[in-house]
């Protein structure tokens, strides 16, 4: 337990630096304002919108109690590949820079080291997402009148519950990407190789396979995470997507832990 806490605190110390926080705040602000503008101004009345579930929300959906924070959820859903690639690159870089070796000399409990690192990343992500959700809500509230979106239902208990639900959904989605990204990083260790594989898989590969094989939507982790983030699709419900992804996440965590614990650290 001590090893886990130390690993967690050390990783958090790397993340909670002034430069990182400033950069993260800037990106959050840009995502919040830019994302809110795109989602609000792209919204159409339900009668005119011919889209299935998982597409951009309609004006009516945005005007509901959870409309303000749904903007946040929709905006983040487009950042899946980016998040996955960031985690893959960050983990692989620890190997290619030799910092894993340095960390293991200070903290040889490898499972605790990996778990603490992931825990700190998720904590940082949770803080960043919470701030981004608030910023997105504020930006959406300011921009909503110009996009003809009613915001009367955005405050109150129902809106808060919906906001917490959106936050929880995004955190689950982020956790899935973080665990899968960590596993790819641990397995491949090289930044260029890990990034190439990560970008290819999370980007075109799954979508190309989806075009030629319909059941791909129900089985591929990236597509399932997208489906979950979108609140479900015509092929797979959000609940089933989450359950299937959970199996992938548990399996990936087991693989990453086993490989990291047993493999020689030679670079």
């Amino acid at each position, binding site marked *: 337990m001590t090893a886990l806490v130390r690993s967690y605190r050390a990783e958090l110390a790397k993340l909670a630096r002034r430069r990182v926080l400033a950069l993260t705040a800037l990106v959050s602000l840009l995502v919040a304002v830019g994302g809110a503008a795109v989602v609000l101004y792209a919204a159409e009345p339900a009668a005119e919108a011919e889209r299935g579930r998982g597409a951009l929300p309609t004006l009516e959906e945005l005007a509901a109690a959870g409309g303000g924070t749904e903007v946040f959820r929709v905006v983040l859903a487009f950042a899946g590949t980016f998040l996955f690639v960031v985690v893959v690159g960050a983990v692989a870089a620890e190997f290619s820079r*030799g910092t894993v070796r340095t960390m293991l000399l200070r903290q040889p409990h490898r499972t605790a080291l990996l778990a603490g690192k992931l825990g700190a990343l998720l904590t940082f992500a949770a803080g960043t997402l919470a701030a981004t959700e608030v910023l997105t809500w504020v930006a959406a509230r300011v921009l909503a009148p110009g996009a003809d979106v009613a915001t009367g239902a955005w405050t109150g208990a129902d809106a808060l519950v919906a906001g917490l639900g959106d936050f929880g959904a995004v955190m689950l989605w982020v956790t899935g990407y973080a665990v899968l990204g960590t596993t790819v990083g641990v397995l491949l260790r090289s930044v260029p190789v890990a990034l190439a594989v990560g970008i290819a898989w999370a980007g075109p590969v799954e979508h190309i396979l989806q075009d030629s094989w319909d059941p791909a939507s129900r089985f591929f982790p990236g597509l399932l995470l997208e489906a979950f983030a979108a609140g479900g699709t015509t092929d797979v419900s959000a609940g089933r997507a989450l359950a299937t992804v959970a199996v992938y996440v548990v399996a990936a965590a087991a693989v990453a832990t086993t490989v990291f614990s047993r493999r020689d650290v030679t670079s």
Partner: protein
Amino acid sequence: MTTTTPVISVDGLTKRYGDRVVVDGVTVDVPRGVVTGFIGPNGAGKTTTMAMVLGLVRPTAGQGEVLGSPINRPGRYLHRVGALIEGPGLWPGLTGAENLAVLARLGGHDVRRIPELLALAGLAGRGGDRYGEYSLGMKQRLGIAAALLGDPELLVLDEPTNGLDPAGMSEVRDLIARTRAEHRTVLVSSHLLSELEQICDWLLIIDGGRLMYAGPADGFARHARDELVLAPADPAQLLALTDVVAAGGLEPGRDGDLLVVPVDGHDPRGLAAALNHAAARDGIVLAELHVRRPTLEDRYLRMLEGDRS
């Protein structure tokens, strides 16, 4: 210097990658309280041996103990060990002080020691600069400072002078000497014995994964044979001088324009006089005639050459 209880003790330590044997049955004790030089050419197995001792690499065969705990349980002893393996391996975007703070938190060490360690490493004024902007020598010194975070009993340093200019080497040697003054045990590797001979009490010499020598540094030097060095005043007579020496039943070697003759149990002064007399008899005037003791580096290189021939 105490040499009773070994801090590192390995028995038959072996590492194979497929058919390639990197470390081949190394059995050795590293005594407590000394600076031990772990010497061998590049690829000799130094880093892999150290990595096995530090729990980074699993041995294919053999066993060992560090500070009384088995090497397959590094969690039991690494909090008492500071190490620098294959370069510092720190985060380039963090400052020197931030790097040390991360590692201090990871190891549960006192972060208040960081200014003291930065000063010890000669980085007192540079702790706030990003590690990525450091020179190679500064990076190595920060790596050693990081290894000292837990005030370790045992310091393991892998090629800490690698890639440094002479001034950088000297700074790192001084830093190691300062840590020795604090009564730590230090195991430090290099592919050049000359880099470490001034600071080592004990030597381990490895080549091709096999341990060639383990013992006191002065003992290694005592094994060095004296040799007689001769040079004719006229370089054209070097061949004739070689014949004169060989006629006396000796086996001279060439070292540039010099002849080098192993003394091998002869009285050096008597042998020098006999060769001087024989050379004069053949009309050869000697410009140089003296006894020299090979350096540790000479002995080390000859040991490696002998092993390979």
